């Protein structure tokens, strides 16, 4: 399954996003969302709980994303990319802007779970 620890770099990028990347010119940049592997150190699988437990899970997630962020920065530097947020959010996601080669290099990192295009969102189309 995509996104697990055994994922190949190609499985960390959806097929449609891969097509978009393939059409980019050399040096052309694109905005993407990198999902970092933060694990579930509290072992809270599906358990609902107190706000205290929620806060602990948030802190654990942020802490777990730090090693990944350092590697992201090193990769982005090599590919003239930039991080678009100072820290990862509670989902372990970090927005970046880089080239297709940069996205590919990010997908090769063991800290990266998946990379998504920063595509548009909208209301659903009205029933017709």
């Amino acid at each position, binding site marked *: *399954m*995509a*996104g697990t620890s055994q*994922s190949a770099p190609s*499985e*960390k*990028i*959806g*097929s*449609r*996003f891969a097509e978009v990347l393939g059409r980019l010119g050399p040096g052309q940049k694109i*905005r993407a*969302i990198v*999902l970092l592997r*933060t694990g*579930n150190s*509290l072992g*809270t*699988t*599906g*358990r*609902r*709980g107190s*706000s205290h437990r*929620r806060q602990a*899970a*948030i802190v654990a*997630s942020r802490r777990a994303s730090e090693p990944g962020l350092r590697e992201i920065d090193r990769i982005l530097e090599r590919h003239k990319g930039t991080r*678009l*947020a100072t820290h990862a*959010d*509670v*989902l*372990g*996601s970090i*927005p970046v802007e880089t080239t297709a080669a940069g996205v590919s290099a990010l997908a090769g990192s063991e800290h990266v*779970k*998946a*990379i*998504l*295009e*920063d*595509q*548009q*969102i*909208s*209301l*659903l*189309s*009205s*029933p*017709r």
Partner: protein
Amino acid sequence: MSVQNHDPGMAETGTPITPPKISLAFEQHLAKVGPSGKCDAMVVYRAPTRQPVQVRGRLRTLKARLDRIKRDAVGHVPVQSRLFQGYEKVSAKASTPLGKLAFSTIGEDTLPVAWVEVTPDSARQLTNDPDVVAILPNLEIGLIRPRKVDYVGLGKQENKDGCTWGLKELDVPGLWSKTKGEHINVAVLDTGVYGNHIALAERLKGFIVVDSLGNRIRTETSFDSGEHGTHVCGTIAGGRTDEGVSIGVAPSANLFVAGVLIGNATLRTLLEGISWAVEQGADIISMSLGFPYYEPLFDEVFKILTDQYGILPVAAIGNENYGNSSSPGNARGALSIGAVEKLPGGKVDVAFFSSGASLVFPGAGPSDIVTKPDVVAPGVQVYSCIPPSKKPDGTHEYAYMDGTSMATPHAAGVAALLMAAKPTAPVSAIMEAMKDTAKHPGGAARRPDNRWGWGMLRPWEALKAL
């Protein structure tokens, strides 16, 4: 009875799975007709393949196309003749009191299609012919006309019932003796909310706007850039109208609303909204929105929500009709919601626009297909609150809306009731109870499918199952 031409699988060997030659719907219809009954059908047969025509220019294209059509029609004749000869023998043996089974060509054989009368047995025999591609029911066709909606009648009935038809259909008011969703936080990611609406009094506990750069913008008062978000919030946790009509499924639940569809919005906007909802202590996140294309890896976000934070993501499956689905509602981990409507006579059916599809996820095994939607809920003529809107006939504060966007908050509200009633139930148990206890009109054997999913939500049954 089964007349489906089941392919032996091939999933294990990796070869493509051949679709059945008779659809499940037609199979069901044939079963109703009975062994000696007959009905009209269309047989699509395999046409001889030809080399594509190389042409340039419109006139030459047209001429070549017509010539090609004539040649193809001639090529269809021997295949069709062989099929008819075989079917004549089948027809002679058919045990129908209604006489022999008729068949005929259609037009000048332009299309590789023929008309036949079939019994369940003759249809099965036809599927055994390697040249038969599919057998379709000879369905009646008609104009798609806009249906006149009797809002006055519906409004009167809802006034009389003291709640919207959706709440009544789900038997939600009966559940309120147990819980109204107290202490459950429902996050709504939408166009914002008009939190000063009287129907939402004291329900809105947090509001934020997220821009396309992911900035969180705090405002003194909440607002809605349209009407959609306010309508959705009303269905989740709204109170009563002046006429005493209850509009919200979980009227004591807390609302946390992120305006993520205000101006240009991207995935980054949505993820920032989701992150904010996690930080606010959301138990449920309701999303009636979509992406331009299917992104299977978004499921990773849903996994984090359910596994790491114990949050239930509820998402609309889309309004693009049967055979389609919208992201992120079609992600494996989302509780995906389709829409049902109330028909004259009290029957409830899936709305024509309600999307549904089965998807194979990358990296999954050949048989690991995800069928969407998961469940269906009221999503047509849904009455809920909107920001005040001045019209020639006065100020409107409530409106009817249609869409899976309206079905989704019904499901989010039901989940809030279940979570409030069962505070220790894990999110996976809530989701499973909602699916397992849903009612499919075709019975348990027919679910899940791409219309009803696992069926229509039954909150009482779900509560009993938890």
